[in-house]
């Protein structure tokens, strides 16, 4: 098969990785308007959970719980006091990620650790190895789960209600604090799941989160206001763009191209980026 045809599934698989690492971020951002800079650290926490457990399938729920609980603690302890100041939250979470990174270094040592890939993931179909397919499946499952949660469960509907009108939701008896907590738990948990997935393809070390965080942010920005649909489209689009840009130029230039395309995209479709309500101005 010609190499550039191979780039199509490769692009999709890059997109799947992007989607997976950005899913939790989109979720918290879309539901709560919080940019969680500590998201990368939760991915790292997921990866180390996989390292400690050693079994991929067991690690998935465990990492969801571990990262989710970390997120929950962060939300309760700090972020909930800062909802009126989203930019401060962003920076605060960055401070948290610094501490978590150093903590990981002290707990697990500075060198990368090894997370063995399960034997049943050896091999592949065509250009795509099984572990890539596994990540793609995981990304699809994640999206479906989030979608089902938001539209098919009572809790999810309550979450939606809080997003649409926090005050109204509160007066109609929804405990918004609890919804926030839960939202953050799920968003962070998804980061943990992503962390397990990336152990299949990349290094596992204290700086792991930094590797993925910028890409995750770009997916969220390109996807628009925390929209699930937007995130899926953006991740796949950026994945393909990355794949072909790198194929025809090189990896360094590809990153610059992606950034330029995102800026250009914002020129055409800034609508996805903001909502203006006329009666109540910012």
């Amino acid at each position: 098969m010609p190499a550039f045809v191979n780039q199509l599934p490769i692009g999709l698989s890059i997109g799947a990785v992007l989607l997976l690492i950005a899913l939790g971020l989109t979720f918290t951002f879309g539901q709560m308007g919080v940019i969680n800079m500590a998201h990368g650290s939760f991915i790292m926490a997921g990866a180390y959970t996989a390292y400690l457990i050693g079994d991929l399938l067991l690690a998935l729920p465990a990492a969801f719980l571990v990262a989710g609980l970390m997120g929950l603690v962060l939300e309760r302890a700090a972020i909930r006091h800062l909802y009126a100041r989203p930019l401060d939250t962003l920076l605060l979470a960055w401070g948290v990620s610094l501490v978590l990174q150093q903590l990981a270094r002290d707990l697990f040592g500075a060198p990368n650790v090894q997370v063995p890939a399960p034997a049943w993931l050896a091999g592949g179909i065509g250009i795509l190895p099984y572990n890539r397919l596994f990540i793609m499946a995981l990304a699809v499952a994640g999206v479906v789960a989030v979608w089902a949660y938001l539209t098919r469960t009572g809790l999810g509907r309550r979450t939606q209600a809080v997003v649409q009108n926090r005050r109204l939701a509160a007066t109609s008896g929804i405990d918004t604090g609890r919804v926030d907590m839960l939202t953050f738990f799920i968003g962070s948990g998804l980061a943990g799941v992503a962390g397990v997935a990336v152990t299949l393809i990349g290094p596992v070390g204290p700086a792991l989160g930094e590797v993925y965080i910028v890409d995750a942010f770009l997916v969220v920005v390109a996807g628009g206001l925390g929209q699930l649909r937007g995130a899926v489209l953006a991740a796949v689009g950026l994945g393909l763009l990355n794949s072909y840009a790198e194929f025809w130029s090189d990896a360094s230039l590809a990153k610059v191209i992606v950034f330029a395309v995102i800026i250009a995209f914002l020129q055409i479709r800034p609508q996805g980026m903001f909502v203006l309500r006329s009666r109540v101005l910012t």
Partner: protein
Amino acid sequence: MNRPRGMPVLRSRVLTSIRRHVPFAAVAVVALVAAPLLLEPFRLGLLAKYLCYAIVALGIGLAWGKGGMLTLGQGVFFGLGGYSMAMYLKLTEAEGGLPDFMGWSGVEELPALWAPFANPVFALGMAVLGPVLLAVVLGTLVFRQRVRGAYFAILTQALAAAMVILLVGQQGLTGGTNGMTNFFELFGQDLADDSTQRGLYLVVASVLGLLYLGTRQLVESRYGRLLVAVRDGEDRVRFLGYDPALVKTVTFALSAGMAGLAGALFVPVVGIISPALLGIVPSLELVVAVAVGGRHALAGAVLGAVVMGYAKTAFSEQFADGWLYLQGALFILVMTLAPKGIAGLVGRLRNARAA
């Protein structure tokens, strides 16, 4: 309200104005006279470095503190300024030949981009204008489309990431990851010489002082009021007949220009410029410094940069690992407990005493 009439008004105004300037003058005297006399050259050099960062911080204080634009890519502008200066220094040294790193990067003739930087006026001009232009282009593109808040922050961060990749990738032009170092002289003065370094320190301190005065003047002008209004109600400002995108772009460009100038000063002081100085982390660290010092007060931003710069040096001399913990923890504490930073605490203290 009973206002004194006639002459007393004038006198009280003069007095207030003098009183307003006493703290500044006091700090200026310490910085310009005491520090060069008391500090050993190595420490003075470090202080000069912090002051360079303080210039960047001043710009962040203006853009973020007053204008509400959280810019996480200030390192990019700092870098552009630094690289302009470094190109000039490299070219004066090469004396018509090629800068050293081009040799080992396989570049055989001077790239056209480099040629004009042999002129110090052009190089210094570009150190400021380059960042200003980039900020104007970027600002126009994003502010016009009303991209703001967290989106803006993330975009500037991505810009920092992209910039680093670009610089590293163009090794023949930029020196790659290594950046540029090994500078010998500036305007005929030996950079290794302690008296040159002292002179540089004085230049940096004076530039910072002048920029501080200028920025304070600007903040207190109607433009400053407009900027605060844009920060607190961008959409409302639109209905006052102003274009917030313009106001923001101008401010962003000013802060970029300051960062560029700081970068240009930084290079002869520290003797190196490299992509590591303008990536995501150094850019964020400066924002942290501004937050710790107090973003709402310009003096707080400056103070924050100096304090955090000092703290980083001190910590890495004592125990290196602790720095990340301390920086992280300090930041969490400031954000949750004292969002106005040191300046806010000082203000509260003063109010408490006055009450």
